[in-house]
């Protein structure tokens, strides 16, 4: 558990650089949100978006190439639990989305995590849920078996 914390602390450096479309790799369902919203996004558009998949994240960058330490932490945590089939939306691609998602959830920052259409929180909350075991439980409710459960089983066998 501590390793992730140290890892995420090391990752908390602001990402800079030109964003370019990275390839969709590692089986991530990375969707490029190009001009999804022409002006202020309708609440129901975002409402539908977050319900389309069990796990939905709004981050800076993509899972293959996160552009911010906090967004990267979310990607890494999901990866640790073996969650690789989720929808990821890059807010750097679309300024309307970037502001729209903040208005929608009434939450001031990115990344934002949604489970089953419900706002879970940002990076801090996901990290604490990971550390205190809540994340494994929440994933189970979604019908997702966390990879860490198998890892623990292996350790106990030794």
């Amino acid at each position, binding site marked *: 558990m501590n390793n992730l914390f140290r890892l995420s602390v090391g990752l908390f450096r602001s990402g800079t650089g030109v964003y370019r479309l990275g390839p969709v790799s590692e089986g991530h369902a990375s969707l490029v949100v190009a001009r999804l919203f022409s002006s202020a996004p309708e609440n129901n558009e975002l409402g539908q978006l977050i319900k389309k998949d069990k796990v939905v994240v709004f981050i800076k960058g993509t899972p293959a190439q996160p552009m911010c330490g906090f967004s990267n932490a979310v990607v890494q945590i999901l990866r640790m639990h073996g969650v690789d089939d989720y929808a990821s939306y890059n807010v750097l691609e679309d300024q309307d989305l970037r502001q729209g998602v903040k208005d929608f959830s009434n939450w001031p920052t990115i990344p934002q995590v949604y489970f089953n259409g419900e706002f*879970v929180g940002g990076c801090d909350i996901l990290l604490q849920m990971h550390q205190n075991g809540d994340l494994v439980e929440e994933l189970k409710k979604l019908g997702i078996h966390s990879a860490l459960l198998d890892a623990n089983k292996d350790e106990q066998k030794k």
Partner: protein
Amino acid sequence: MPVTAESIRNKLAAEMGAVHVEVEDTTTDHCSTSFKVLIVCPQFEGKPLLQRHRMVNTCLTEELKEIHAFEQKTLTPEQWEKQKSE
């Protein structure tokens, strides 16, 4: 008035009845735009994480408009004592 670690600390202590507040300016070039906050407040008791964080967000609505990045850790006094002894 620019947002500083001090102004955040004062606001949280005053408006949330926090018993302990730590604010760290995590901005890499010290332009006061990135903060890490620890808040210990009895009002967090019985509230899930998301609700606690929203309380803080509400308290710092104006400040959050100015700053670029924000991390927070919210504990009840009991959790804080436990963490200190670990």
